[in-house]
């Protein structure tokens, strides 16, 4: 059972995905979550606190989309291809709202630099975790390769959202990329 914070923020992610930041109000989140009026304002007293919460929740959800509920990814080319592939499929399917909300939040951070700090916190944590995995999976240039892979998957999801490929094999595509990066065999 999700706790109240998670429940409200997941509702807020849906609101942002559907209506943009213009639609993100405490009342809209209460309504979407089906909770008593004022619930969202109790936990997130200001609009800024709510925005920070949604941003952090998107990062948490993205971690789970890649690593599954237990945060386990096998440190091998195959394991990472599966994880990034699973991420892409969820980002395009059941977790589409997270993807759309992310574009909205990124665009807002581009316009409002003070929001970037919200992103930096969660992003550093995710980077450290992923960097270790990529290194253990056989990369000779973990920083470079993680940068290439992360940008690749972000771009893949973006393009597929607009113009979907029938029967997309995201894990296979990521595996092709990893092979091009020349990791040593485990």
């Amino acid at each position, binding site marked *: 059972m999700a706790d109240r914070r998670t429940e409200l923020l997941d509702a807020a992610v849906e609101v942002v995905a559907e209506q*943009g930041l*213009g639609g993100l109000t405490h009342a809209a989140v209460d309504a979407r979550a089906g909770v008593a009026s004022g619930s969202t304002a109790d936990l997130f007293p200001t609009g800024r606190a709510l925005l920070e919460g949604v941003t952090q929740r998107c990062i948490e959800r993205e971690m789970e989309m890649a690593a599954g509920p237990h945060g386990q990814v096998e440190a091998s080319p195959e394991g990472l291809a599966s994880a990034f592939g699973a991420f892409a499929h969820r980002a395009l399917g059941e977790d*589409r709202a997270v993807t*759309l909300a992310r*574009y*909205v*939040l*990124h*665009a807002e*951070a*581009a*316009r409002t630099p003070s929001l*970037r700090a919200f*992103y*930096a916190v969660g*992003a550093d944590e995710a980077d450290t975790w992923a960097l270790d995995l990529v290194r253990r999976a056989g990369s000779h*240039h973990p920083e*470079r390769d993680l*940068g*290439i892979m*992360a*940008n*690749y*998957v*972000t*771009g*893949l999801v*973006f*393009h597929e*959202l*607009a*113009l*979907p490929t029938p029967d997309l094999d995201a894990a296979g*595509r990521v595996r*092709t*990329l990893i092979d*091009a*990066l*020349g990791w040593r065999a485990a």
Partner: protein
Amino acid sequence: MADRRTLLLDAALELVGTQGMRGLTHRAVDTAAGLPAGSTSNYFRTREALVLGIVERFIARERAMVTGPRDEVDPTPGGVATALGRYVDRALGPDRAVTLARYAILVETAQNPDLREGMAPGADEVDTWALDLITRGGSQAPQRDLQVLANYMTGLVLHELALPSADLDAAARIRSVIDTLGWTSTEPVDPRELQM
């Protein structure tokens, strides 16, 4: 001198980039372009026609961001890296409105599948052009490399927009991806590029 249709579409792109799709009305485009009320409606009768026009203009602007004003790219790994780096620099700088419009259009497309049909021909045209460029640049696996580079650049722009790097050298980053992909080059090697 841009024709009136292009002028309207550039104004519409700016508008979408700054205010999102919600801000897109015929009247708002008239105002943004500094033209009399009704001008946009004369060229684009429906909202859908206007959105399709914006998509078409958006694709033309993106291509110009790669090629620069002379519409040419040096067909070597270094030339392609320079051109694609220029695209990234422009997408984050002077053509930021185009980038922001791209996200707004994408979100709209994801929610409105009819728009996909309007986007597909333009996307195919860009692919054909880019595939030719990449092949001439020295790629041994053009389909694969086009995908890698296109996705990489989109991700890089999206990421840098929200969390900018202090001294981003986009052309050098793209060059390192190209080198990873093993393009054959007749260029002399620059020793600085070996220090990765």
